[in-house]
């Protein structure tokens, strides 16, 4: 068992390139403590999603180390059934593209996919699925096919398919992107509520309007795929020069935020 002070997820000096040519991450270090809300901020293509995939053990870094719950996450470790089972049940990932995540023929089968793969019994899975669908207010969609769902409903199903496994850490990739205002607000409140119950949240976003609610700490990625700043949302939002340099805001952007700096 890891000690209380040990971070739940930690990457140290991590770099990653796609096809050994396209650099996505350069020497990134991050430690996420239990119960924290951490936001990865950056423009499109800066490497936020790639880091989330590394934190979920879906891709492995070219260099550097990744540890989860005090254990190094490597290819060998993930091939170990016991480790894989423990890691997958403790870390959940909500993808940006709900269409990729909602792949089963019906909503019920989609939500049951995770628990079944973690070896739970059919009865237990049925109860969990029912409870999760009810909690997210989508019980009436249980027998619907994904192509019959709206974007907001698909997002709810994707979240349900992860929450049903009751993970300790939740990774969200651009959670509020392409959602209508009501669904956005619902999702923001859900993330805050989940964090209040003790879940650790790591999310990638470039939505600055909600960042002070969604994060306790921010990590700012530059367009050169390195971390160029970190701090509380207020500190980051207060540094207009930093946000301009990483393409998070434009010179003409006015942030409607009480602590946001005015245009120079």
């Amino acid at each position, binding site marked *: 068992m890891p000690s209380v002070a040990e971070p739940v997820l930690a990457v140290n000096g991590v770099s990653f390139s796609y096809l050994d040519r396209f650099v996505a991450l350069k020497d990134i270090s991050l430690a996420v403590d239990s119960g924290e809300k951490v936001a990865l901020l950056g423009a499109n293509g800066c490497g936020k999603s790639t880091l989330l995939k590394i934190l979920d053990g*879906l891709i492995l870094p070219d260099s550097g180390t990744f540890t989860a719950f005090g254990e190094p996450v490597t290819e060998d470790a993930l091939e170990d059934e016991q480790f894989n089972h423990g890691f997958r049940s403790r870390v959940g990932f909500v993808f940006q593209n709900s*269409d990729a995540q909602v792949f*089963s*023929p019906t909503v019920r089968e989609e939500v049951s996919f995770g628990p*079944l*793969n973690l070896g739970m019994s059919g009865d237990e899975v049925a109860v969990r699925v029912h409870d999760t669908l009810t909690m997210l207010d989508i019980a009436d969609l249980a027998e619907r096919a994904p192509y019959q769902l709206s974007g907001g409903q698909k997002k709810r199903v994707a979240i349900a398919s992860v929450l049903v*496994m009751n993970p300790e850490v939740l990774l969200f990739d651009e959670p509020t992107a392409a959602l209508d205002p009501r669904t956005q607000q619902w999702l923001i409140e859900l993330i805050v509520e989940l964090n209040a119950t003790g879940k650790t949240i790591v999310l990638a976003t470039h939505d600055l309007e909600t960042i002070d609610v969604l994060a306790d700490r921010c990590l700012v990625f530059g367009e050169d795929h390195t971390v160029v700043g970190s701090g509380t949302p207020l500190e980051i939002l207060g540094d207009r020069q930093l946000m301009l340099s990483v393409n998070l805001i434009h010179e003409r952007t006015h942030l409607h935020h009480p602590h946001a700096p005015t245009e120079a």
Partner: protein
Amino acid sequence: MLQREPALCPCGCIGKRSRTNFVDKTIVGASGLMRQVLFTEDIASRPGLLQRLDPRVKALTMVGLVGTTSSVRNIRVLVGLYAIAVLLAVASRIPLSYFVRRVWLFVPIFTGIVVLPAMFSFITPGRVVVPLGHWFGHRVGITSQGLRSAGLIIVRVATSISFVVLLTLTTTWTRLLAALRSLRLPRMFILVLGMAYRYVFHLLGSVTEMYEARKARTVQTNTGVTSGRAFVSATAGTMFGKAHAMSEEVYQAMVARGYTGRPRSLNPFNIAAVDVAWVVACAIAIALVIVVDHAIGR
């Protein structure tokens, strides 16, 4: 660019009408497919006789009925079986014209072509009922035996297809897949089939958007075959790339939730009294058909 230029002919005419091109046809075809699938899903959710049955029971009994149909040798018995299929369609609240069209639209085209030669005296000798002339001193034409053989095959195929159509129209695709899975078909096969069906709609949406984007930027009425071909091949290439990227992401989403290469699934079906009654009714019908067919003979 900043000047307003109304896109009207300077002579004041209302322009020329263009024929429907492949872009329009593709868009209409894609939306037509979606409409048809939604219509069949609507039929499957109606409160009819076959919709009430457990999909496993339904699939097994339909296989039994198709097997019986293929073994029947008397055309009158086959017509009786077809009548049963029609009655089942009515009891399952399937629009009769839709059901009949769905079966008979393709049977004459495909089976008819195959059995056409069997009607003639040089394939099936017998009493010539429609003479077509003489060939080396022999009468050539359509024989009654040939007509009977062709009729037997056509009715047999139509009846078999009717039972299969009854199964697919009264069962949603998702429940049908689940039924096949519980009937011990390989889980991987069912998983791939289910995902293929799921993503066909997603990719269909992408194709439609690409064609709509082209249509929105097409001013010239006749863009030519060469540019059309180039567009179609570019679309195919783009779709291949999109499908590949999507498949990688879907696999990652599966792995993220504990998938290790062994598909597992829920089995939510229960056998009810109506299923038992249906199985008994089918067993009696099949036994009767076999006995009557043997008694009557050809």
